[in-house]
């Protein structure tokens, strides 16, 4: 029997195993599809709009109401709630009803007109990171505008046109150009890494689980015979169906993201699919390495894969940048496949730069794929001698 025939025979046996229990398909197909669906719809709006916020207007004059109207016009905030005092607003915040509130103390107008420079305050709840940051931006603009509104009135009174007035109020304007994600879409930024991260985690876990189950059921010797006494043939045959299934999941995810949701993708769909394929191989290789290191200890291998998979969400550095972590962790980050996926994705899909700028990450993924070579001899002993340990 040729090697290819053996591999295919083992793969067919593998598919029969999958058909036997719903667990396999639910982890390889149902869970990934649900994750794609969930994250795409959860953040469907891109940027959160109409965050609930409140106003405490103790002044209640023409000027303070102008300020309130200015703020209310801002897109991301919904200032429909008003409170009688600071304490009431703070309590509403603690109950989680509002994310922020604006405080205009009594006498603001009086002091402003008589040139005594009154002070208004805004409070945001920074325990909610995204909401807090978005509101801070809005409220900052609003209070800046409210102060300037008075100056502008003075200038208009002196006969200045709108352009002239603006040139006095705001001579220098900062125009921001977010490269690659011009609408600041949060879903583009999060989904592109979180979903592949979950795929990587599932790939690593199913790799170790399906290999380990052979030992658990005591069928590893049968598998070894089918492979013609070759560990690498046995592993290829076992993992080939999963390679195909998970690559298909990545393809599905790419199509949903870049075709259906129209996320920015400058490199074209093919290179992202290729990246998905390479990532699947790298994660499977990592799982094989883990099981090889703990020969036969399926639970330990799965625990380490979980640890690796969950930690990679932090160490990929897409939320909190790696450069801001301790130097040791910055180097450790290279050991996580998701980190390289992230760097290549940014380079390819988001920015559309030549791949040569991330050659280190491409090389790293290739190294991951070669990892099983280190433990092949250990698999040989495992197949022949080891038994399942709980």
């Amino acid at each position: 029997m040729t090697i290819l025939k053996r591999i295919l025979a083992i793969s067919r046996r593998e598919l029969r195993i999958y058909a036997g229990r719903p667990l396999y398909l639910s982890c390889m197909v149902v869970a990934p599809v649900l994750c794609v669906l969930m994250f795409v719809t959860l953040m469907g709006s891109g940027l959160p709009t109409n965050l609930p916020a409140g106003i405490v207007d103790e002044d209640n004059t023409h000027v303070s109401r102008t300020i309130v109207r200015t703020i209310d016009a801002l897109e991301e905030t919904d200032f429909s709630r008003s409170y009688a005092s600071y304490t009431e607003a703070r309590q509403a915040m603690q109950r989680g009803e509002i994310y922020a509130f604006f405080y205009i103390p009594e006498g603001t107008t009086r002091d402003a007109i008589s040139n005594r420079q009154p002070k208004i305050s805004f409070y945001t709840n920074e325990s909610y990171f995204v909401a807090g940051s978005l509101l801070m931006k809005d409220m900052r603009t609003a209070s800046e505008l409210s102060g300037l509104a008075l100056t502008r009135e003075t200038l208009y009174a002196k006969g200045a046109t709108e352009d002239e007035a603006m040139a006095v109020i705001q001579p220098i304007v900062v125009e921001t150009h977010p490269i690659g994600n011009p609408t600041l879409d949060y879903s583009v930024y999060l989904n592109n890494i979180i979903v592949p991260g979950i795929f990587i985690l599932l790939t690593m876990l199913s790799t170790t689980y399906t290999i380990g189950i052979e030992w658990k059921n005591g069928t590893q010797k049968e598998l070894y015979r089918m492979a013609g006494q070759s560990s690498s043939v046995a592993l290829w045959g076992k993992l080939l169906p999963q390679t195909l299934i998970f690559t298909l999941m990545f393809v599905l995810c790419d199509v949903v993201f870049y075709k259906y949701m129209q996320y920015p993708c400058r490199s074209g769909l093919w290179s992202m699919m290729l990246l998905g394929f390479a990532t699947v191989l790298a994660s499977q290789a990592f799982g094989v390495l883990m099981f090889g290191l703990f020969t036969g200890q399926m639970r330990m291998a799965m625990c380490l894969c979980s640890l690796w998979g969950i930690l990679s969400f932090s160490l990929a550095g897409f939320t909190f940048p790696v450069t801001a972590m301790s130097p040791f962790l910055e180097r450790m980050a290279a050991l996580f496949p998701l980190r390289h996926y992230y760097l290549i994705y940014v380079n390819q899909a988001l920015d559309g730069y030549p791949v040569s700028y991330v050659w280190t990450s491409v090389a790293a993924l290739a190294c991951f794929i070669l990892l099983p070579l280190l433990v092949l001899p250990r698999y040989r002993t495992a197949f022949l001698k080891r038994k399942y340990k709980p």
Partner: protein
Amino acid sequence: MKIWLHETALIFRDKGILIFVVFVPLMYPLLYSWVYTNEVVRDVPLAVVDDSDSHLSREIVRKLDATPDVSVAARCVDMAQAQELVKRHEAYGILRIPASLENDITDSRQTYLGLYCDMSSMLYYKALLLAATNVSLEVNKDIKVDSHISGTTDRQDDINRMPIEYEYVALYNPQSGFAAFLIPPVLMLIIQQTLLLGIGMAAGDSRERNRGRLTPSGRLYRHPVSNVIGTAIPFLLLYVLMAVYMFTVVGRTFTLPSLGDYGTFVRFAIPYILACIFLAMVLSSLIYRREDCILLIVFLSVPLLFLSGLSWPVSSMPDVWRYVSYLFPSTFGMNGYVRISSMGATLADVKSEYMALWVQTGIYFLAACAVYAHDLRKRSRQVALAKA
């Protein structure tokens, strides 16, 4: 009572379960806090293309460099050179100052600075944007006063700069730190996930040893309610300790915001832990092998964190997912805990979460009893078959 002792002994004999219910809850919070110990991003490298090269433009660059968020990494002669730096990730943004800067200001025209940001991480963008906006506002005020409406005294100048002053207060997380935002909810998530894993593994274990049934045979395990309570007690005791450890040791060591009251926290934690335990028992009806639970539960952590509404605001979440999130204790646990520990809320302030957790505890308790009762019926049928 006997079941309780028996189950306790089982937990402590099994290395696999111990890893999940003791080692992970103890170590994971420390690991996370270490990763995020720096809290904020400082000195994001910025490339400057200064086409104006004037007194004013140099002042802008100097002021930017002086902000804590940004450091000017390079001064480039043209955009191409700056872009090259961004491509190599040696800079995460470009500030372009136009050649017409001085002229525009003298002629009273608005002038535009271009800020190009690398979007690979939102925090880089946020740091660059904040720093650039702050500097431009500051420079604007000076220009306004110096060249247009200068007053007679310094105080008058001050007031002209800003007729209404404002202050910005970031409540509960004064430096907008990332750890203070992420760690408290993650602590609660760890409690739920490790309980699901630990109890799931115990269930898989007893199925493997008791011919696919959740409980060993014998008179001791004949009643479903006592089975459920007996299994729950050791986990509850262990996890109250864990929760206290997270609340005090982890919070203090890493100076996370801790305004919370001790008694409030413990009273809140008890229904949370109970709800998690009973949910775990219900889910264990799906688990037939020890290792199954790892495959089914670990990956859930990430979606659950997002469903809680702590990262993505609940107000912009589709209703379907909000209802799904009500199924898991973690949603209420995380929200309540953040409010108690970071914002100093009392039990009355988190009343809705607190009540929701008790409701979940009740429902999942009944469901767990049903699962065990179903299992017992199957067992007696097995016994009857074996006799026949």
